[in-house]
């Protein structure tokens, strides 16, 4: 019980700070809208139908925009050494990791909702007839993504290279999320039956569990000095 209270305390603190500053949501949100605008001019709608390539673009926007915000996860901890203070408290480090991951998941979910709104408004996409399946697909993929990027942003903030390291570390590991996420969303967009995406959902679930479990297990080796 105590364990979950720690997770909640950490997540709440992060969300409170984000609500006060809106730094990360603002950066990611404007990124998303502007990508929508640039995307419109980067394809010739006379040749390519947006509906056909939208799943790919949406997932790339989630990844790039998401990484933009996730990379800042530990910056708000570094001023005045607050993170050292947190490390001096008697909390389990995996709970600390899970708390920060949860806060990131909430923030990234908001941004993802915005992405879907932007793309449906700009390009008149239809999201198919299985909104809950789509939600599951996106949510599982986000859990996996946030799990990995929270761990690696804790790492990159402690290196001399900083955030520029993050894509090199995270992108190769994101292949399962991209492949199964894109495949499932394009099938759902195209109105295919749900049975065609259950395999993808299962793989995304495995990816999510793997990322978060590995992150919780290894986080302490990243923050330990």
């Amino acid at each position: 019980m105590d364990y979950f209270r720690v997770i909640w305390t950490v997540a709440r603190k992060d969300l409170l700070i984000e609500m006060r500053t809106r730094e990360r949501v603002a950066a990611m949100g404007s990124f998303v809208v502007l990508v929508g605008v640039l995307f419109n001019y980067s394809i010739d709608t006379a040749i390519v139908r947006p509906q056909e390539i939208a799943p790919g673009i949406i997932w790339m926007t989630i990844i790039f925009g998401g990484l933009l915000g996730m990379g800042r996860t530990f910056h708000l901890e570094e001023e005045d050494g607050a993170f050292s203070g947190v490390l001096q408290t008697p909390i389990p480090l995996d709970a600390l990791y899970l708390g920060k991951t949860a806060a990131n998941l909430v923030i990234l979910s908001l941004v993802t909702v915005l992405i879907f709104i932007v793309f449906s408004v700009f390009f008149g996409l239809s999201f198919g007839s299985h909104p809950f399946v789509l939600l599951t697909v996106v949510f599982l993929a986000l859990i996996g993504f946030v799990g990995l990027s929270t761990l690696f942003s804790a790492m990159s903030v402690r290196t001399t290279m900083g955030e520029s390291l993050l894509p090199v570390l995270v992108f190769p590991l994101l292949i399962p999320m991209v492949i199964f996420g894109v495949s499932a969303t394009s099938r759902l967009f195209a109105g295919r039956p749900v049975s065609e995406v259950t395999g993808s959902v299962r793989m995304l679930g495995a990816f999510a569990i793997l990322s978060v479990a590995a992150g919780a297990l290894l986080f302490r080796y990243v923050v330990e000095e």
Partner: protein
Amino acid sequence: MSGPAPFAVRETDFSGSPTPTLEARGLVREFAGFPAVDGVDFQLDAGRLLAVFGPNGAGKTTLLRILAGGLRPTRGQVLLDGNTVDVGDREWRRRIGVVSHQGFLYGRLTVAENLEFYGRLFGLSDLAERVPERLAAVGLEDRSRSVVRTLSRGMRQRLALARALLHDPEVVLLDEPYTGLDAHAAAILRDVLASLKDGRRTVVLVTHNLGQGLELADRVAIQVAGRFRWIDDRDRVEASTFEAFYRDVVEERA
């Protein structure tokens, strides 16, 4: 306003135990093969204050971080009541408080939110009473809703002090606590330190400021190049000649 702070200690611990409370045995910490702390031994009885003096780069902060359980020693061990403590020992963290020149505060949260956050991480249940009480003790009771960023440096230091002592630690570790304090904050710190000397709290104070450290210390150590060059009881030291002696030790003339 700044009377003795009401920092209570749990009564069950340290019932006049004859064993040394805090002990370091052959502590060594190397960074990239270079020893920052190089074989430190000491014993500190419960309720006593050890002041560690030393020039910059003597490894004082590293020593303190090892004692605080934030850094794993390359060799040697830290013992509390005769039991070895390890990095990640959560019971150990519950019993220590660290005051550093950094405040460990979130600039975007309010004064009260900071204390409440840390209080929850320490698993304290009486935060509704405890937080205002502690804020009053450091003279910040009317600033509890201010965002920390808007506070002056002195106020932030006082808040940092309240944060470090929020959970009534039995072992208090202070790393250059006087750095950058204004006169008011320094006075409060002195009062708080004096109130910590209630005979049941063990304190290690690391500083290069001889006067302030010597005032309160029971034991005095001088650390040079990672090692304790000298350690003795405070009453064996003459305050008036200590500065000259310190310089002799640092420059290896003693």
